[in-house]
């Protein structure tokens, strides 16, 4: 059953003339990991805010079309309780620190205090999620005295701990190094396997290719592609729209221009696919010699 059903969504911010999203339709199954790619200003964040209910309840503006999450019309939900169902992690980690708490441990517990989780369970969940996101050793530090990457993990942990059914992540690895990004992607995939539905706006196509179940590409508010990572990420139109492609795809595309890529073979999106492709080329050459 589709957890997220969007039909002909068009949304315009109150101060804007042009819609930020145009006629977007999308259905996402429970436990699916969907990545959203697109250049800056394509509407990725807007889509994230819509699923989390901040559009239309926080940013007013004009919303047309249907958005249903877990069977509920997004226009009818109460935002203050909706956050229990859909968790939102957004870009700037610094502004996600609540400011109400003095240690990382208390910061992560803040959401649980607000929704009335008993103390024992709160401690268990906070400690679990700190181990999961690799920040156990930061427990007693001030959340403000951390690096951007550490704050980003705290921001992620603070939402994960609330155990939402749908997790919406808007560039959650922007401040993380490659190792940190990989860890976050691994955590997210594990959650997806546990049945949490994941929507993630992200630029790092190499990681998306490896971890996401589906990719949708947005450009100028419109959905220009949707499908398996291998299909969407090798779409030849992506560079025209200003969307970055994987370095493996880029290398293979260049090789294909030189006649160094098997003609019928789809371009690669991961390192393994690239290696396999070049092996095939090498073998073909070996035969001709």
């Amino acid at each position, binding site marked *: 059953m589709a957890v997220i059903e969007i039909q002909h969504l068009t949304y315009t911010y109150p101060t804007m003339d042009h819609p930020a999203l145009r006629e977007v339709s999308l259905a996402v199954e429970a436990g699916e990991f969907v990545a959203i790619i697109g250049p800056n200003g394509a509407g990725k964040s807007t889509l994230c805010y819509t699923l989390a209910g901040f559009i239309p309840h926080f940013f007013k503006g004009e919303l047309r079309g249907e958005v249903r999450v877990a069977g509920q019309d997004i226009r009818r939900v109460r935002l*203050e*309780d909706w956050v229990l169902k859909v968790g939102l992690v957004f870009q700037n980690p610094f502004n996600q620190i*609540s400011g109400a708490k003095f240690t990382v441990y208390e910061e992560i517990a803040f959401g649980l205090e607000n929704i009335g989780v*008993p103390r024992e369970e709160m401690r268990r969940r906070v400690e679990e999620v700190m181990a999961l996101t690799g920040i156990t050793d930061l427990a007693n530090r001030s959340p403000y*005295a951390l690096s951007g990457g550490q704050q980003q993990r705290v921001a992620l942990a603070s939402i994960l701990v609330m155990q939402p059914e749908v997790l919406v992540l808007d560039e959650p690895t922007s401040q993380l190094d490659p190792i940190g990004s990989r860890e976050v992607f691994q955590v997210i995939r594990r959650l997806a396997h546990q049945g949490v539905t994941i929507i993630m706006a992200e630029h790092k196509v190499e990681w998306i290719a490896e971890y996401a179940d589906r990719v949708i590409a947005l450009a100028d508010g419109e959905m220009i592609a949707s499908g398996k990572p291998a299909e969407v990420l090798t779409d030849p139109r992506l560079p025209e729209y200003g969307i970055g492609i994987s370095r493996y795809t880029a290398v293979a595309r260049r090789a294909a221009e030189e006649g160094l890529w098997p003609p019928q073979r789809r371009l690669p999106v991961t390192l393994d696919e690239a290696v396999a492709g070049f092996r095939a080329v090498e073998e073909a050459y070996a035969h001709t010699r």
Partner: protein
Amino acid sequence: MAERLSFYLERNSPLHRLNPTTKLVVAFTLILVAFLGRGLFLPSLLFLLILLPLSFVGQVGREFLRTTLNLLLPLFAFLFVMQSLFYPGGKTVLFGFWIFAVKLEGVRFAFLTATRVLVMVSSFLLLLLTTHPGVLLLDLTQRGLPASVAYILASTLQIIPQMQAKAATILDAQRSRGLDTSGSLGRRIRALLPLVGPLVFGSLVDVEERAIAIEARGFRSSGPKTSLIEIEDRPLERALRWLCLLALILAVGSWWLWP
């Protein structure tokens, strides 16, 4: 970045373990008794016999004395000079020099005022030194302070150092583009403008994001709330708070008893 956000010093003392409200009540009682009670030496005795020993019980004696003196010595020096020389009702001249005369009434008034201020400042200081701001706010929230007010107080404590850091960054950025921040006063004031704009507008943008962030954490969630930290409130402390009320009544009553 500074990890220290308030006066609070972590110690394992009986004073630290007291309920924050008890400490708040005691602090207010001491201040009110110092200001309302009679007797020239009452405030100084409150300080010497209650506050000073308590600061050592709380294992913060050194910081307590140092901070109190740093805060108040300049004020006291000024107070004594002005009042002993120019107190309006001064008649009894202690000694004089050149055109000035030091009068007993002025010295008494200065002493009483100074020791009252001393009790006021040092009671609050002792409260802040031995009480974690988060615990104090949590306790007040549980006693009916609206969560939003507690949030504003707690986040202000944390945001001030952040704003300072941000101001320093903006200033560095403007300087690296050739903004001159040295020179005459007028020039320095003019140099402030390119600092204030980005700081204020940047903070407004931050406010919106922070509102989303705390909303996403269920801050306005409609159900009952719980808290991570449990704050003890022993019956003995409740008794102590009633005792404070009694002391207050006595201090006020002394005006009727000994007119």
